[in-house]
């Protein structure tokens, strides 16, 4: 039995992760990571993952586990990008540039004729809205991606008013409570994952980004070139799976679900609740919670595999 397990392990295709720097036209360095399993992965339609504001690549690959690896194991080439202001990328001074400069540049560097995209939260709304007409985008999975923005709560407002400093949340019980309320409410999350992600998987928002995000929430829309974010997403036509965690306190489901009826394209909606999936899934636990690999990942894989 042991020999069999060893043989299977040795025979399993190896995962390789590579990193490259991508420079944008305005001189910002972005971090792009590639996940491949085996010698001949399917490069014809890779999958690009985009974490939310304040999150990093760790949202999709944390301590050897996560959606990036799960998708790569299906034989697809997977990319995770850190847009400006995220992870190891350069600083951000404008939300719009995430969608109008960074994301198109990453698509150019990847060079695939078609690709699928998995996005989360506010960053997801921006990149999808700014690139809604890009013919290279095939299918989209959107995790708690708001259409009609509002200030989610008094606590979220205070967090942004104070600058969106994730690094300060881990240093006190009050800070950890704020993190839990906004990102891990009632989450089925390993305590180590919670604290280690807060310490290593987040990055402080810059003051301009925190201010702009708050202004977006307060006004309900984000100006983008020619057409606003709401206008652009309201004409969305690509096949999309919209996954909603009820417990998301940062990008609440009630701001996202309305996308299904506003957009003319086929948007499948799947809402998770503790009744059936054992977790209401908050912003973090929908990706790294104990139940994400069995309840969330298969939905994403199934949707992206369905040709």
């Amino acid at each position: 039995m042991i020999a069999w397990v060893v043989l299977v392990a040795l025979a399993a295709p190896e995962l390789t992760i590579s990193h490259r720097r991508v420079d944008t036209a305005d001189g910002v360095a972005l971090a792009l990571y590639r996940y491949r399993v085996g010698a001949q992965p399917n490069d014809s339609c890779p999958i690009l993952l985009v974490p939310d504001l304040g999150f990093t690549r760790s949202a999709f690959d944390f301590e050897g586990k996560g959606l990036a690896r799960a998708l790569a194991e299906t034989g697809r080439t997977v990319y995770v990008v850190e847009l400006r202001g995220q992870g190891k990328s350069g600083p951000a001074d404008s939300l719009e540039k995430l969608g109008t400069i960074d994301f198109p540049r990453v698509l150019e560097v990847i060079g695939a004729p078609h690709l699928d995209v998995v996005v989360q939260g506010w960053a997801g709304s921006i990149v999808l809205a700014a690139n809604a007409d890009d013919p290279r985008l095939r299918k989209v999975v959107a995790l708690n991606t708001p259409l009609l923005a509002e200030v989610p709560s008094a606590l979220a407002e205070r967090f942004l008013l104070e600058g969106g400093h994730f690094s300060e949340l881990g240093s006190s019980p009050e800070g950890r409570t704020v993190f839990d309320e906004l990102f891990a409410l009632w989450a089925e999350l390993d305590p180590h994952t919670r604290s280690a992600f807060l310490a290593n998987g987040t990055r402080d928002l810059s003051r301009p980004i925190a201010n702009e995000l708050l202004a977006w929430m307060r006004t309900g829309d984000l100006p983008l070139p020619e057409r606003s974010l709401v206008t652009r997403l309201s004409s969305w036509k690509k096949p999309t799976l919209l996954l909603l965690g009820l417990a998301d306190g940062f990008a609440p489901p009630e701001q996202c679900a309305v996308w299904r009826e506003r957009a003319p394209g086929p948007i499948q909606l799947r809402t998770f609740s503790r009744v059936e999936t054992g977790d209401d899934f908050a912003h973090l636990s929908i990706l790294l919670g104990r139940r994400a690999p069995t309840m969330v990942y298969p939905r994403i894989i199934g949707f992206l595999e369905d040709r």
Partner: protein
Amino acid sequence: MKAAIAFTLVLTSCANLRVVPLPAEAERHRPKTSDGWEISLVRYRPTGAPTGRPVLLCHGISANERNMDLDDEHSMARWFASRGREAWTMSVRATGDSDRPDPEKGRTLPIRFDHYWQHDLPTAIEHVKRVSGADAIDYAGHSMGGMIAYAYLSQGGNGLHAVATLGSPTRLDWGTGLESLLRTLGPKVVTEEMMFPSRLGASVSAPMQTWFDDGPFQRFFYNPESTKPETWQRLVVYGTADTAGGVAKQLLEVIDTGRFASFDGRIDFRADMARIHVPVIVVAAKLDRVAPTPAVKDGFRALGGPKKWLLITRANGASGEYGHMDLVIGERAPAEVFRPVLDFFNQHEPPRI
């Protein structure tokens, strides 16, 4: 030994199984609808000088008036009365102490959601107005009780001055696994001509309600962080009502089609809610798994206004997270739900001095 433990458990669980009677000051009224059903109303006169209009309170599906008036400590009705508002609870037909179906007396099945907004609510409103002398009254509806108000007002109903809906959905198609189950099983199990025996299920399950910390009832209906299991158990014992098959079928249609509509499909309540200009405060619970926040927000967006959105969550200052039933029986609901509702009512009409 095992038998002794089981016996002790049952005894402990049964301690809450008695019905807490209404207090002496509760006045019972039974107005009759135009189609022949007596509707049970309970009136609480205001403590001290009246501070505003009477408030009518209506429960949700499979429930009765005791949802809004469980006992001394868990009673939206008595809380409003103690703040100077004449408070009334109502039971829609075939629930609580309202008339049951009786074909010999012309009270036949099916009962549909449309009966509630076309007959029961208007009858209750007129009765409260007549008895109190008010020209219009305030209203709070929990879950389906809020949907009844939405339907009534969207079709031009009058007599309501300001409204609160608590956990009231206007869409139920959110892609949950439960919907798939209801879509599949519902049409096979539910017929229009039946009364679904929810009370029997409640009676059978009542002794077990306090046995589990994180059982299916906690997950679906309430949050032990906000409601004591013993409080929930009392609600199960005497706050549950049989469910009319016709009502269940109409709500299954809401799940199936995404439309909040009349039984014949001709009236689109959600579309018509844009015509509602009575002030409405829409209250949602962050961890409501019966009427999830997108379902409640859908109704808020449909309203013509003026309107206010209130999300109960720790992130907005609540002391715990709320589920569906916590909005009316939660231990801190008086401060965290009833108070903002009363403030909203008062804001739309300054208290009488």
